[in-house]
């Protein structure tokens, strides 16, 4: 009798109606979604901006990847997992031995070899190929083949972010045989990767279609394919989601999220802060911003908590300078929110800001212009910031310009202050870009040898704990110098129909289809065929 009870209990656990049972992943179905814009081209090297990457993420893979798990925020720790590399070793500070995964095939059936890896990384590094993300391999001295399944990468010096850079979506591996045949990146035929989806068709005026790659090294994908339509209008994307034309949606504000959730019972959604923060970016080589007291006063005047509430209904993050709040190496929020400039109530900070301005000679008020792109979140943040700065006697005149003009003005230094979006997903790249005196994005003209030293030191520190400490030092230094005044990282929402499973929320702009092979649709999904 006792045995019978045990057997029945085990059977009960295994049956589908048990609350502890695993869902059976259904094969088949076509996932449909909307991309905001088509990629500039299928040339992954030159189309390395976000829309190019978005379109080609399901197709190409790199040696490593970040640990994308549905329901988890991979940005916290940037944990690395092997992808086309099976494992790697670091025999010394400047040498990496990469062992390639066996049995990986290109979409045209040919096998992946070390020659492909050596070719791809050297192609990316070569300035004449004008790859947009050439900087991902900064510090790499050589990439060599050891044998058919092993590659050796040598760096100029210790390079702590190298593995992270290899995991970035733009550091993908391409087929050498296509390059040798003169077909690399030439249309759909030249877009051959190792990813779970292969490119079936691309019409920049309508859609991009992927079909499942049955010989994918990680197992045949569950989906038959994916169709991504190019829909620039947010209301059209929202309508498409409600009409089940699109299976998931990324919306920038709670109002759109609530509208979508109301129309789709059972929709699954998640709000999250972006790691793309906004900052007031000043010409620190000129008055008034060459005076740290003025910069500190601006920082002290901002009420970031109110910004997050007003601009994204409480979904967002307050970040220290230089890093995104979502990362583990950022000053913890509990600690940050006690610091001057970040704490509430603001009375003490506002009084201190006024005192600093008076000391700096601006007791009667300070006026300057803040230039911002006239689209996205920028105007809203600029308006709230300008309103808050008024409380300490600063008049910020807002100058909203079109994107092309903004980039030109920024590059030419034709501004007093900017409301600038700054992505700090990849901390080394971000610090070098914006804060290093030689940084290509250092349009604020920051020239601080101590800061340069710290930025280089974190790059060369391979021990993770030590590196985190240096990053902490950098943040504290930037809090003191306030070369760039951070505002907030606004929130976004991700909403999907309940029949979509194992979809990774990439938490990026735009949304990326990581681990496309794992996505599956249950029987409630609309019946669709792949065009």
């Amino acid at each position, binding site marked *: 009798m006792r045995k019978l009870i045990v057997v029945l209990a085990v059977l009960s656990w295994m049956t589908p109606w048990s609350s502890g049972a695993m869902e059976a992943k259904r094969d088949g179905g076509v996932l449909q979604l909307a991309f905001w814009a088509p990629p500039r081209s299928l040339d992954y090297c030159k189309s390395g901006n976000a829309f190019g990457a978005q379109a080609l993420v399901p197709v190409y893979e790199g040696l490593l990847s970040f640990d994308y798990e549905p329901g988890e925020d991979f940005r916290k720790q940037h944990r690395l997992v092997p992808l086309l590399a099976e494992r790697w070793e670091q025999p010394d500070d400047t040498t990496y031995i990469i062992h390639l995964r066996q049995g990986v095939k290109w979409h045209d059936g040919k096998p992946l070899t070390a020659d492909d890896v050596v070719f791809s990384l050297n192609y990316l590094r070569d300035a004449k190929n004008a790859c947009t993300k050439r900087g991902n391999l900064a510090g790499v001295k050589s990439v060599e083949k050891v044998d058919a399944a092993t590659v050796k990468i040598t760096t100029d010096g210790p390079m702590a972010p190298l593995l992270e850079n290899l995991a970035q979506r733009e550091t993908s591996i391409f087929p050498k045989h296509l390059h040798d045949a003169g077909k690399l990146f030439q249309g759909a035929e030249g877009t051959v990767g190792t990813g779970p989806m292969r490119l079936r068709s691309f019409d920049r*005026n309508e859609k991009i279609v992927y079909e499942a790659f049955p010989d994918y090294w990680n197992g045949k994908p569950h989906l038959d394919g994916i169709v991504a339509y190019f829909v620039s209008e947010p*209301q*059209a994307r929202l309508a*498409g989601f409600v009409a*089940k034309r699109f299976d998931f949606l990324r919306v920038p504000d709670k109002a759109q999220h609530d509208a979508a959730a109301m129309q789709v019972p059972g929709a699954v959604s998640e709000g999250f802060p972006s790691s793309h923060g906004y900052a007031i970016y000043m010409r620190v080589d000129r008055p008034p911003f060459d005076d740290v007291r003025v910069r500190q006063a601006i920082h002290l005047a901002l009420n970031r908590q109110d910004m997050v509430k007003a601009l994204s209904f409480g979904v967002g993050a307050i970040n220290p300078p230089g890093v995104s709040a979502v990362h583990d190496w950022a000053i913890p929020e509990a600690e940050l929110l006690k610091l001057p400039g970040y704490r509430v109530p603001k009375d003490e900070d506002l009084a201190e800001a006024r005192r600093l301005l008076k000391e700096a000679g601006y007791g009667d008020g300070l006026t300057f212009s803040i230039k911002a792109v006239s689209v996205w979140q920028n105007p809203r943040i600029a308006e709230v910031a300008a309103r808050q700065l008024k409380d300490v006697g600063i008049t910020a005149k807002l100058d909203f310009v079109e994107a092309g*003009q903004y*980039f030109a003005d920024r590059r030419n230094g034709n501004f007093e202050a900017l409301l600038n979006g*700054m992505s700090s997903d990849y901390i080394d790249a971000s610090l070098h870009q914006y804060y290093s005196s030689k940084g290509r994005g250092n349009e604020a003209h920051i020239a601080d040898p101590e800061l340069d030293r710290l930025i280089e030191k974190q790059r060369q520190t391979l021990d993770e704990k030590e590196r985190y400490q240096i990053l902490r030092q950098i943040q504290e230094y930037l809090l003191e110098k306030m070369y760039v005044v951070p505002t907030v990282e606004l929130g976004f929402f991700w909403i999907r129909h309940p029949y979509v499973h194992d979809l990774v929320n990439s938490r990026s702009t735009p949304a990326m289809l990581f681990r496309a092979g794992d996505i599956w649709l249950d029987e409630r999904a609309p019946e669709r065929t792949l065009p």
Partner: protein
Amino acid sequence: MLRYIVHRISMLVPVLFVVSLTVFALMRMIPGDAALLIVAGGEDALYDPAVLAALREKLGLDKPYAVQYLEWIWNIVRHGDMGTSFWTGEPVAREIMRRLPITAELAVGTVIISLLIALPAGILSAVRQNSFLDYSGRFLSIAGLSMPSFWIATLFIIYAAIWFSYLPPPGYTAPWEDPWVNFQQFILPCIAMGFHDSARSMRMTRSQMLEVVRQDYIRTAWAKGLRERSIIVRHALRNAMIPVITVVGIDFGYLLGRTVVVEAVFSLPGLGSLTLSAISHRDYPQIQGNVLVIATMFLAINFLVDILYAVIDPRIRYRS
């Protein structure tokens, strides 16, 4: 008449020359670097100065403006080649030929819808002046004028999705490939734009009809005992339509440039949305090509309207 036609055609060349020079100059005056937008890619993207310089050279942006203009014009005149898009690398002319039919179909559909609303409403309003029908028609025209077409378009797709779980098929399917899909893709945007445009045509039809029905020859027609329908359609409408046709014809030309927002709402890949994205990318060859084509079509349409005017109104034909 023939001399008039030849003269009008000969005027096209200097006008298009001025248009080409104007668009070339205006685009160069707008701040922004086409090559920087390609290599920088986004708000926070890096760019390599060496890569930027190489790209500027490849795109010919390092040449003097006069050389850039002359090379572009010469290629059009000599080879019919409008150049290559900076952004996509595709031939400009090919992209225009792909997108133009979409915008043209949208414009034609808008005019048809507009006339289907405007003519009956305008005629009824005039014939039943100061009646309930008249006031309803005038109210409808005010409503149409007041509501922007892109707003109507947005309401259409939102409520179609909410009430019927329906969204028009995205993209473009040619009418000869699948007429039903093509109809679904265009009916809502054409109604959105047509309703807005019908307002002016309706009011003009009404005022012209009111003027014409008071003419002596109409009174004669009544006196002769002709039926009302015959009087209105055969005698009054034809005369009333002359200025309406002029306005509709000119509007059609403007429509070619006005479709951009509705194209975006309905994801129709037309010339309007192509021009807008080309401007934001500083895609000079694409913008220049688009503007030249739209200008040529506008001039051609105006020319045809003038000819049609002469065809419809024998008084003009005899005078010319």
